[in-house]
């Protein structure tokens, strides 16, 4: 103990051993958790995905690719989830971008209050904010009202993919706004003035200055939103009444009801792979676009 308390203990041999010990101790709890609650469970899932279903459910060791074959044959829930998550990400972006721009450049002195007002919903219960739409969209309220406008007494909003989409956009909107706001807030405003002085219109300025600057935030936000949307379970269950068969439902069905762990595991592996591939393609696409635009901006500048 005495050596540890002397200044610059790392210089002495005993101090170095103590220092290594301290490092190990600091990392120990997190390492245990990562091992037993992440690496091993995910390892089990990957291993199970090559196994066979035991006779009374569960898993029996084997090596087969049948599970993956089956996943490829019944890819509908994947496509359905991919469709909803893509549409949800795009809509969220559409709503978030103008707001983030407004907050970063036009909100003035009340900016702090506006941001706090965004943090509050983000901070309050996701489940409660989701189920509340049951009241809002219900037949007694908005659902009935729209049905009345359409003259269709059987019109329902709840239990449809549209309701799920609304829930997705609603639930994940703050996650898109925050990163966009942060990047736009750091933007050098003189660039916009320069662009305008050089005669660029609003649209040209937005496309050639603001958008490229917002791009890192846009990518972060899209990824933050797309991932949970892809595997979302609560919103489709509550607002979709579990009628739209998404990947979350499929996984729960395989693991808990059919007790076909190997098939469920294969689906989980494919889900993660799909997500990683989608994100990589997206990032690659955006980077390529940015390079192309970067050249465009430079090229358009008068000599």
């Amino acid at each position, binding site marked *: 103990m005495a050596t540890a308390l002397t200044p610059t203990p790392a210089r002495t041999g005993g101090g170095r051993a103590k220092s290594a010990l301290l490092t190990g101790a600091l990392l120990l709890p997190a390492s245990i958790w990562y091992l037993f609650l992440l690496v091993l469970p995910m390892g089990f899932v990957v291993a199970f995905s090559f196994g066979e279903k035991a006779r009374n459910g569960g898993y029996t060791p084997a090596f087969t690719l049948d599970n993956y074959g089956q996943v490829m044959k019944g890819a509908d829930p994947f496509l359905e989830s991919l469709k909803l998550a893509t549409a949800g990400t795009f809509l969220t972006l559409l709503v978030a971008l103008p707001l983030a721009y407004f907050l970063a450049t036009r909100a003035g002195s009340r900016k702090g209050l506006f941001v706090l007002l965004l943090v509050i919903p983000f901070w309050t219960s996701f489940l*409660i904010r989701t189920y509340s739409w049951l009241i809002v969209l219900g037949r007694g309220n908005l659902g009935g009202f729209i049905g009345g406008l359409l003259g269709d007494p059987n019109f329902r909003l709840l239990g449809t993919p549209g309701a799920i989409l609304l829930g997705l956009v609603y639930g994940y909107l703050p996650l898109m706004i925050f990163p966009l706001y942060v990047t736009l807030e750091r933007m050098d405003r003189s660039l916009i003035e320069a662009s305008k002085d050089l005669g660029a219109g609003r649209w040209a300025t937005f496309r050639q200055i603001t958008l490229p600057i917002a791009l890192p935030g846009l990518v972060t936000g899209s990824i933050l939103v797309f991932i*949970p949307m892809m595997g979302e379970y609560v919103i489709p269950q509550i607002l979709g009444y579990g009628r739209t068969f998404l990947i979350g439902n499929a*996984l729960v069905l395989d693991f808990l009801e059919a007790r076909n762990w190997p098939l469920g595991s294969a689906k989980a592996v494919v889900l993660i792979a799909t997500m990683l591939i989608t994100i990589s393609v997206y990032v690659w696409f955006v980077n390529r676009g940015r390079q192309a635009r970067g050249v465009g901006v430079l090229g358009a500048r008068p000599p």
Partner: protein
Amino acid sequence: MSASGVARPRAGRGRALIAAERMNGFIDGLFRTQAALVYAFLYLPIVVVVVFAFNANRLATIWTGFTTDWFGIALNDAVVTKSLGNSAIIAFTNAILATTFGTMAALGLQRVGKRTRQGYDVLTYISIIVPEIVIALATLVFFASTFDVVNPVLAGLTGGGKGAFKLGFGQFTIIAAHVLFNTSLVLLLVRARLSGMDRTLVEASQDLFATPWRTFRQITFPQLLPAIVAGFLLSFTFSFDDYVITSFVTGPGSTTLPIYIFGQVKRGVSPETNAVATMVLAFTVGMLLIGQAVLAWQGRRSGSRNGSMANIVTER
């Protein structure tokens, strides 16, 4: 530039400026309207839940009159109070563990080589990006398989019979599963703070012969405090609010509030559920505001301007 710009007569400049001004005002109005609509959209469901908690009608979706009865009914409901207690215990234990582990790991990662750090980075990001439902099911099958192997051994050691020690699903498994995600969260928050920290203060402290522990206590820790407080509050809230992971690794007798609410809502929203939800909302918003106040106070004391909850959440 454009042909029309060149062709425009000089005398029209003043009028063009006025038009531009008007256009600017119009666009500003558009932005303001959009912002107002988005905020209305964000707060509508929250307001609706609170308002309908005071609805006299048993069918929660149609408004008939004002009452506060549902709050009394909810607080006297043994299932509600039991799940509330469970949720509080789980969320609090999880927040303590995750904040401690995450902060420790963030400090530890400063002291290791690049390779080790990158390894941890990968694990941290995986634990955050893998969909909750996958983590939940993976944890479930892992625990179930482990218990299948361990329990017979334990039964053999403790002599079997009714009083034998057995591992099973319950509060313990829920806390264990929650701590994983939240440790990663705290780790990221504290590391972001560490990387933006003023190193010269630490060096000055060392030059003045402060012990490493004293340097940590008087220099590093106060600077990390906003991130630690934010991490604690976020961990508590995420755990208190979690449905997916909890519902899969829960056991008999450890129903949490989200599991209760989910079950109720599947059968139709009742004003009692709204009353419970309103109390939860009041509690979480209160916690957020307290956190905000603590950080503001801490910020004033240490003179740092980065002490707001909104800054921590939006900080990258």
